């Protein structure tokens, strides 16, 4: 680590001394963030002194610095989890510089050494990224080369190991990942296609993972390879995007050590014009968990990313039961329609009215036994047969939601939303035996700007269900003084909990100050137990009570 730092500094110093470098061109930018929480016992919501176990403070923080001079760039990120906030993996505890890199970039070549993030296509085969709010980081540590041999052709090569919390890579303690990707824009390379009435982009990628195998029982593949192909077609306002990925047998703790191949398909067809947009998406996933350590089951060391294709909800109750991709198998579809009723029409009014309709459903795949004697999914076997075009009747998730937003005057606007949800909590959250949740939700969100830069926002939500925690109501009032201040009071009330003693109020008081890109926010209150998801990754958050502080700045 120290050596790397010294080399980096040397490089920076050296770069100044070369005559052709003008230090005027050098720039440094960065960002810092601190999220701290003080926890207090709160017996009403089940947090006792012993549950806290002396851990009254938690802190997640980072600092990121990027230095650039002409075509040279270098950066490093410091992180501290002392200890991590409630709900984060305990293996995150620690501090140091987990992310250090340097790169050189010209039009033809872009090369990075150290830690980097990259994605091939839509990520079905390879995606390395980070999500600070979830504590997710599968950054690569190695070398990345991007090449553009000619206009319209882009090649990517990656080689390295993946981040696993604070554990340093050592021989055989996890796998090595290497891959290649090519993307060709046909309109740019074929003469006469520049002005064609259609657009066509094709891409292909390959990934190989090496991990030593020394299993006493199974003969495991040490090299697991995967291939993916994609095509993007566009004509007029239509656009079609498809990617298909396949990998060879990869027995792992995630799939109960079956030798079946993995497959994933993602396709979307969309239409967009001013005022109107529609998209339909299809997805099929079969045994597609791909990690660089076959023994890991946590949210770590993922090589690929299979996106859940359903709406990410923004209101607290509508986001209470979020879906997470079932990597071992699922089939789903999504439909979304956005329409803006033009201003001046009867329904559009003076400002126009926005309507959004969204539907998604995800089912299990069908798994037929290999023969009469081997049960489905038995370890050491091929697992099962699965017909590609048929879905099981078992519904994991279904969400139908309609949202209307309307501005009534320059001062008043509102959003209303209805949502009907089916959520198989037993599968998605691993709560075996729990019945699926069927719920109806309503949201009203009204913003009243009563002065040029002052506004009040009211949010009322209701969730009605017979299952799990029963009915909820939520209210929020927010007062903002643009661009600097906000104050908010919110309460979520679980008034319909079948257990009388759990009919709790989860209240919070919060305030924040923003100046340019610096932000300080403080909140006091209770956080209900739940799931936080960003992108496709979710994190279970335990109930907590106390004071939180968040400070961040950019420069």
């Amino acid at each position, binding site marked *: 680590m120290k050596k790397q730092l010294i080399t980096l500094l040397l*490089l920076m110093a050296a*770069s100044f001394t070369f005559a052709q470098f003008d230090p005027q061109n050098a720039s440094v930018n960065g960002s810092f963030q601190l999220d701290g929480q003080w926890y207090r016992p709160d017996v009403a919501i089940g947090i006792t002194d012993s549950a806290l176990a002396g851990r009254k403070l938690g802190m997640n923080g980072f600092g990121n610095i*990027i230095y650039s001079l002409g075509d040279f760039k270098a950066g490093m990120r410091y992180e501290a989890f002392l200890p991590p906030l409630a709900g984060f993996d305990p293996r995150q505890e620690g501090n140091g510089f987990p992310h250090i890199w340097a790169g*050189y970039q*010209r039009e033809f070549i872009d090369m990075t050494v150290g830690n980097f993030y990259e994605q091939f296509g839509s990520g079905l085969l390879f995606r390395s990224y980070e999500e600070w709010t979830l504590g997710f980081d599968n950054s690569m540590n190695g070398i990345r080369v991007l090449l553009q041999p000619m206009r319209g052709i882009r090649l990517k090569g990656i080689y390295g190991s993946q981040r696993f919390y604070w554990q340093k890579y050592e021989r055989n303690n996890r796998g090595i990942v290497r891959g290649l990707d090519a993307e060709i824009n046909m309109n740019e390379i074929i003469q006469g296609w520049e002005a064609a009435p259609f657009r066509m982009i094709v891409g292909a990628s390959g990934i190989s993972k090496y991990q030593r195998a020394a299993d006493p029982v199974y003969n495991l593949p040490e090299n697991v390879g995967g291939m993916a192909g994609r095509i993007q077609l566009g004509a007029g306002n239509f656009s079609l995007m498809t990617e298909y990925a396949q990998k060879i047998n990869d027995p792992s703790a995630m799939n109960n050590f079956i030798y079946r191949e993995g497959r994933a398909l993602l396709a*979307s067809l969309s239409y967009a014009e001013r005022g109107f947009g529609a998209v339909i998406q299809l997805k099929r996933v079969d045994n597609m968990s791909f990690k660089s350590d076959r023994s890991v089951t946590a949210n770590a060391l993922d090589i690929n990313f299979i996106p859940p294709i359903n709406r990410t909800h923004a209101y607290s109750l509508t986001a209470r039961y979020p879906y997470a991709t079932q990597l071992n198998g699922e089939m789903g579809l999504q439909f979304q329609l956005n329409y803006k009723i033009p201003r001046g029409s009867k329904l559009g009014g003076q400002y*126009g009215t926005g309507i959004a309709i969204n539907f998604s459903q995800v089912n299990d795949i069908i798994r037929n036994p290999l023969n009469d004697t081997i049960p489905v999914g038995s370890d050491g076997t091929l697992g099962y047969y699965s017909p590609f075009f048929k879905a099981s009747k078992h519904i994991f998730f279904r969400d139908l939601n309609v949202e209307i937003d309307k501005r009534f005057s320059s001062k008043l606007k509102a959003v209303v939303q209805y949502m009907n949800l089916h959520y198989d909590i037993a599968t998605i959250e691993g709560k075996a035996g729990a019945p699926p949740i069927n719920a109806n939700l309503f949201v009203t969100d009204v913003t009243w700007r009563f002065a040029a830069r002052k*506004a009040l926002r009211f949010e009322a939500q209701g969730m009605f269900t017979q299952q799990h925690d029963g009915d909820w109501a939520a209210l929020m009032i927010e007062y903002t003084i643009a*661009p600097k201040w906000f104050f908010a009071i919110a309460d979520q009330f679980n008034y319909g909990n079948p257990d009388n003693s759990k009919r709790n109020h989860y209240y919070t008081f919060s305030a924040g100050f923003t100046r340019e890109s610096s932000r300080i926010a403080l909140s006091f209150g209770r956080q209900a137990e739940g799931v936080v998801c960003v992108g496709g990754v979710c994190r279970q958050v335990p109930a907590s009570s106390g004071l939180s502080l968040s400070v961040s700045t*950019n420069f």
Partner: protein
Amino acid sequence: MKNAFLFLMLLLFVLPLAAQESALPKVTIKTLDGKSFNTGNISNDGKPMIVSFWAIWCKPCQKELDAFNENYAAWQAETGVKIYAISIDDSRSTARVAPFAKSKGWDFEVLLDANGDFKRAMNVNMIPHTFVLDGNGKVVAQHTSYFEGAEFELYDKVKALTGKKK
């Protein structure tokens, strides 16, 4: 690792430095129809620009962009400002960005930063995060979060760049 650094050093010696066109980091992201787009090409003929990071799941971001859109014609007439809206939606929702943005009637350029490369290069952690750039792509002001009416404060900074009084 060491070899890589040595190689890099070598590269630094051998290859001459290109002239800098834009102060923005050069990262390859995508246009709404899937074409590669280098962020070094974010430009506006020497006139100011606004670059705003957003996502489909971020309500305040949409409110901010809606507010920009309501004023865009007037702002363009006055200062020639150009707005770029950078979606950080990942592959979960990239396919929905174009239909969504078009249905909103937004008149500015929308680009896709599906793996957050541009977001990281600009040190954006929370969205909405909006930058005001001068004609050379240099950041002169930035702001995170959006509250009703904040667009006017931001536009004052654009006006200051063109030498126009508040």
